[in-house]
């Protein structure tokens, strides 16, 4: 694997700098002392230090799952170091997923904004249409290696569900996908696709019937079926080692981007931009560049109807640290610590948490996080279709919108890479309703 895997979880699964006392390189990370207290020691005012407040990540799950998750960690570390496993992964990435994906110079978008050069990392061209399959394939191979016959997954937009159903079919494993009843309604094509691939779809009605509830339900299934089941979490969240494992499987995005840009332009990008739901496509793009202090990393959260409206999914911009789904991270929550509903026009960003490594990069200042509204994302969809002939997923359109704003403010010597995490076919209903209401009525 590449040698720049620097931000590692410590022995308790918390994200801390790889060099003790060190900190990730980054322009905005100056307060080293404060940084190491926050991430390596206890919390201020607490004499003996509390594990609960020492960082982001961890493994906060019910006892029934603890031993199992420990097994997954051991199996993963073993597989990661096994050349045969890596070879099989690479072969399937190439021949089945279609990697490497192109790094495409978006000439007309660049012209339109009249500033920085905009490149698109085309994860939408992967088999099944999004970056999700990078992770689904890796974890499914691990499940197979561990002798697990049944895969379960949660899904929001359905892209992760489709990716898991797809690799389950390919590897001959059973597959059950948990999906919120609300999301089933707004992502019908993906639901039908998963069924066609042989997966069982379980509608989740509990809570708010969206992604977080699907994740609760998948965890409940797992607790009841520990013997034969492997839970493929779809983003860089969940109990350790998931955030690290999913990041590693997605890191191919940034590794390729780096090679491609060096090969064609002989340089590194100035800025990377990716949308952040749980944060897997963003971590995938960022990871290979974490140690390149000159590369600015920007994550784009969903501002929904606006941060001030309260109807958004921006955990880093509008949330506070807490514990959900096995890890400590930024969460949308009320004053009593109850999790609040997230809102975004894109089902894939509609999650009230964010991967713990992003929480860490946010606090350290190594990456910055902005938020883009539903309407702005829709505008970017229209623009990308008309200027580039590419229909982006609503999720990815959040990143595109912000990249456009940045490009317009920068000079032509600057290079921005946007992760085009998925294609927008699944969103046609929503897009038509908003951008072409007359068509939707017809």
């Amino acid at each position, binding site marked *: 694997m590449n040698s720049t895997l620097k931000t590692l979880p410590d*022995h308790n699964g918390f994200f801390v700098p790889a060099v003790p006392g060190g900190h990730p390189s980054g322009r905005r990370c100056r307060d080293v002392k404060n940084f190491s207290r926050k991430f390596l020691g206890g919390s201020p005012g607490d004499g003996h230090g509390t594990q609960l407040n020492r960082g982001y990540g961890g493994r*906060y799950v019910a006892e029934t799952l603890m031993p199992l998750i420990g097994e997954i960690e051991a199996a993963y570390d073993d597989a990661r170091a096994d050349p045969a496993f890596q070879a099989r992964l690479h072969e399937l990435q190439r021949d089945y997923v279609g990697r490497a994906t192109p790094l495409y110079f978006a000439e007309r978008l660049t012209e339109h904004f009249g500033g920085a050069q905009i490149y698109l990392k085309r994860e939408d061209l992967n088999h099944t249409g999004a970056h999700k399959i990078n992770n689904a394939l890796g974890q499914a191979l691990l499940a197979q290696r561990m002798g697990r016959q049944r895969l379960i997954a949660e899904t929001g937009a359905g892209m992760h569900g489709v990716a898991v159903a797809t690799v389950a079919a390919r590897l001959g494993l059973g597959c059950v996908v948990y999906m919120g009843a609300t999301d089933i309604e707004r992502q019908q094509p993906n639901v039908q696709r998963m069924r066609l691939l042989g997966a069982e779809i379980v509608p989740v009605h509990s809570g708010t019937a969206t992604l977080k509830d699907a994740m609760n339900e998948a965890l*409940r299934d797992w607790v009841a079926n520990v013997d034969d089941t492997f839970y493929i979490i779809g983003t860089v969240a969940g109990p350790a080692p998931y955030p690290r494992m999913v990041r590693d499987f997605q890191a191919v995005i940034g590794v390729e981007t780096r090679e491609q840009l060096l090969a064609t332009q002989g340089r590194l990008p100035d800025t990377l931009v990716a949308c952040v739901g749980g944060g897997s496509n963003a971590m995938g793009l960022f990871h290979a560049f974490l140690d390149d202090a000159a590369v600015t990393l920007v994550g784009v959260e969903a501002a929904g109807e606006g941060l001030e409206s309260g109807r958004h999914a921006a955990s880093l911009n509008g949330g506070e640290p807490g*514990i959900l789904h096995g890890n400590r991270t930024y969460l949308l929550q009320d004053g009593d*610590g*109850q999790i609040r509903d997230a809102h975004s026009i894109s089902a894939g960003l509609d999650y009230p948490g964010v991967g713990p490594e992003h929480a860490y990069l946010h606090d350290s200042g190594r990456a910055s996080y902005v938020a883009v509204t539903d309407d702005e994302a829709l505008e970017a969809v229209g623009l990308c279709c008309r200027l580039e002939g590419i229909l982006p997923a609503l999720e990815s359109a959040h990143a595109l919108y912000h990249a456009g704003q940045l490009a317009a403010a920068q000079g032509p010597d600057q290079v921005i890479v946007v992760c085009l995490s998925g294609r927008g076919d699944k969103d046609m209903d929503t897009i038509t309703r908003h951008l072409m209401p007359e068509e939707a009525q017809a």
Partner: protein
Amino acid sequence: MSAPSLTTEMSKTDTPNPVSPNADSRLARRFAALKAADRAALVTYVMAGDPDPSASRDLLARLPAAGADIIELGMLFSDPMADGVAIQRAGQRALANGQTLALTLEMVRDFRQRDDDTPIVLMGYLNPLQRFGEDRFLQAAAEAGVDGLILVDLPPEHGAAMTARARDLGLARIPLVAPTTPPGRLPALLAQGDGFVYRIAFNGVTGSRRLDIAAELDSALDALKRQSPLPVAVGFGVRDGGTAAAIARIADAVVVGSALVERLAAAGVDAALELTRELAESIQGARRGES
């Protein structure tokens, strides 16, 4: 350059001194009395604030007279990963009717005015406690007259500091032990445990199925007993007097949750108390060869 495994590292780093300041706690006294009477404890789980604050207070006040030896009081959380539908819905009802952690602590304080003997154990998830303030919560719980805590999503790997502070305040940290728990993990779990050990009867969420008493459970309890002087409670899936009695013969305590919560939802406080009485009678008869 992979990180060392969490499971292998934890026992070294996070195990506090296994001293129990709770020898004369309400929990210890209650278990001693039950032991003298050769009877298992009935532990009843109810969600604080379910279905509404006043009915919940009424139920709490009357549970001991109906036969509850220990009361487990649920602290609601919007995302209870380890609970089945019955308890999820109980939490939603309580939330909809305005229950908060502060009100739950107040309920305990009021209960203690009239009953200074029945142990109360709070059960829940970490996030609401953290939001309330961990230290503030522990202090308030101890002052209100809470005896112990069951924290579903706080494994010993992350729990050492909290356990130490809870102990200082005389609050027992009741460890959950699962069928999946390998023998090698038990010492770390037990080192942070006081009050009693909660043995989860099967792999699954609360209330998800009816428990079959299998020989495995019997031998698992024996193994636990050999490693810990603490009483052992068994819970998850106890729905009727027959199952309760069967457990009462092999364990020190029987936990009933979902069945009670369902009865409360379907038929109200009096019906829930009626079920409590039935279960208490079955448990009382269990070791005398009745069933």
